[in-house]
């Protein structure tokens, strides 16, 4: 197993907190000095890293991640800023065409706080109770208040009853199994099923798929932001607020199921399960006795689990010879989100605060969105067969003169069912906002707080002298 600096990597990246309550605070600052003061004050509150927890385990956890604007606002040297990947520099809103955030999910329709490009940082607070979270959050907010930085807005999230999400499905069952000693003692089959499938069974994914500065599934250490102390042990967080239309979902399931299995009271439940690939209790549609130790090798045409089911298209569980599925290990994400409920926010007033952890936003999250969620061709199905649960009803190709995109409703195919198609699915999930963040390692955070990685005049001079002497 590779040597991994657990005490350098932020806890949220690799560690399952099992804390059901979260608060996310969004900040900006105007000068590098204020940014440094803010970060110093935050570090004084004890950030949580991946190192093994003492016993008893902590009641709360604290993490931080920065946008590209945030890094700029620390006065980071241009040469260093240039080493960050394009998609991170652009930010989620600028990448809407790739992510598929069209129509009502387009950045122009996002909630106020998310719409602006002002966000410099998110502070992520997790706790075991709402009370504990609120008390700790107010301590943190107070400490940060005096630094001259501005809190833009905040967002609460929590685990719902029985670990379900708002459509009623059990959530967070499958996570990537990562090759790090001490993360999972004696991993059971359901942990291992989150790994990669090989000839000798499930194997853990290399840590470089999720943390910068380590070997990934290509057996190489991919390029990461420089200098090393800034990039290494960092990770990218994709944060998205996904509103869900629960009434619409339930109604559509009922209506469509009636056309497929007339008069069957179990129909809508069955249809929802086929679209998810799991029943609401979390069981895969064709396996009764395991929740994560399974694959689709014996179901190539999707008669048991439809090819386009949410959990099948977002986690192929193997490389098949169909184009688009080779290298499936290269597009995995760790999910760290919880669920929100905004009273008085209208139809899309509840949903998920989706957080994905990855080492490359473009290769992992964006690829997944573009090709696996919002396309059907890689399955050998139609292009407008997109993810039945989270897919979007627009296609970048249908661009009108004015640059907008007409709606093109999704279809869903279920070979072997009495009526094997569902047409004209409306959207069930709408993006309310989101951003790309970088969660630096400990050394990087301490460096940023102390004005390292910036190009001061003195620095430039020293470099020039060195260059000249060569």
């Amino acid at each position, binding site marked *: 197993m590779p040597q991994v600096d657990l005490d350098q990597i932020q806890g949220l990246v690799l560690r399952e907190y099992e804390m059901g309550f979260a608060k996310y605070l969004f900040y900006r600052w105007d000068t590098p000095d204020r940014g440094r003061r803010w970060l110093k004050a935050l570090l004084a509150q004890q950030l949580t890293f991946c190192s093994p927890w003492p016993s008893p385990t902590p009641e709360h956890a604290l993490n931080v991640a920065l946008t590209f604007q945030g890094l700029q606002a620390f006065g980071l040297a241009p040469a260093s800023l240039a080493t960050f990947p394009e998609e991170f520099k652009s930010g989620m809103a600028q990448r809407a065409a790739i992510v598929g955030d069209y129509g009502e999910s387009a950045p122009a329709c996002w909630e106020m706080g998310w719409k602006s490009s002002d966000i410099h940082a998110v502070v992520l607070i997790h706790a075991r109770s709402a009370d504990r979270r609120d008390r700790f959050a107010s301590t943190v907010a107070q400490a940060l208040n005096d630094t001259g930085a501005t809190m833009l807005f905040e967002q609460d999230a929590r685990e719902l009853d029985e670990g379900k999400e708002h459509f009623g499905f059990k959530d967070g069952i499958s996570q990537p199994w990562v090759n790090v000693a001490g993360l999972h003692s004696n991993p059971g089959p359901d942990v291992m099923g989150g790994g990669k499938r090989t000839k000798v069974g499930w194997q853990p994914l290399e840590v470089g798929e999720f943390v910068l500065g380590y070997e990934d599934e290509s057996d190489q250490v991919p390029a990461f932001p420089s200098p090393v102390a800034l990039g290494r042990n960092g990770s990218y967080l994709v944060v998205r607020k996904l509103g869900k239309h629960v009434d619409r979902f339930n109604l559509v399931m009922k209506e469509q199921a009636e056309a497929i299995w007339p008069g069957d009271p179990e129909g809508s439940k069955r249809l929802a399960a086929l679209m998810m690939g799991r029943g609401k209790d979390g069981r895969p549609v064709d396996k009764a006795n395991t929740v994560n130790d399974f694959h689709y090798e014996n179901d190539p045409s999707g008669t048991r689990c439809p090819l386009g089911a949410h959990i099948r298209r977002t986690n192929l569980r193997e490389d098949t010879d169909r184009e688009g599925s080779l290298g499936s290990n290269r597009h995995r994400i760790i999910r760290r989100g919880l669920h929100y409920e905004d009273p008085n926010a209208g139809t899309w007033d509840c949903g998920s605060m989706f957080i994905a952890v990855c080492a490359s936003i473009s290769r992992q999250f964006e690829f997944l969105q573009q090709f696996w969620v919002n396309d059907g061709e890689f399955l050998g199905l139609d*292009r407008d067969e997109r993810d039945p649960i989270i897919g979007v009803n627009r296609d970048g190709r249908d*661009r009108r003169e004015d640059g907008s995109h007409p709606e093109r409703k999704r279809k869903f195919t279920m070979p072997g069912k009495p009526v094997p198609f569902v047409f004209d699915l409306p959207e069930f999930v709408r993006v309310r906002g989101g951003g790309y963040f970088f969660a630096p390692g400990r050394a990087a955070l301490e460096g940023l707080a102390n004005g390292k990685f910036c190009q001061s005049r003195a620095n430039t001079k020293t470099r020039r002298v060195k260059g000249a002497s060569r």
Partner: protein
Amino acid sequence: MGGKQRGNNVTELTCIAPLKPGGADKLRALFAQREADEKQGGRSPIEQIGTIHYARWVIINGDKWMLFTSNFDGGLADYLKEFAERDEKVLNAIFQFCEGWPGARPADGFIKYVEDHQVTAAYYYAAYARYTVGEVKRALYWKKTTEDFVKKLGKPRADKDQAITWLLQELAKPTPWPLPES
């Protein structure tokens, strides 16, 4: 990045790279082998990338240059990344005979190489520019399946209900390729 696009979908790539001394003959031998293999029923490795309509390699200017053109769905950057990820061996087998070839992976070096040798078309036409390779194959599969269905109905004492059930289930299958003989 260069390359013209039509119908918001199909993109052209023209890449002209210098051949190493003796490279032209080796390249011809490589492609002759490929053609012979495909005559025996072998599948082209290009199929691994489901977005390529056409691709060709031409040796030009007295064996000094290799011309590579391709027509594919989507943007050039995605296409090249996928090519490097999926068909690393194939790319290396061909481009190893070109001067300055950095290898297909890491993809960044390969992308830079293609960009450096790419020439944008002065004019680009495509008959069904909006439609992807996947859609064309799917449409042909549905056409064939529908024909088979109509043939079933045309048989004496055809069971209509059975034929309809057959049609629905066939249409729901992922596109088989190449299309099966009927």
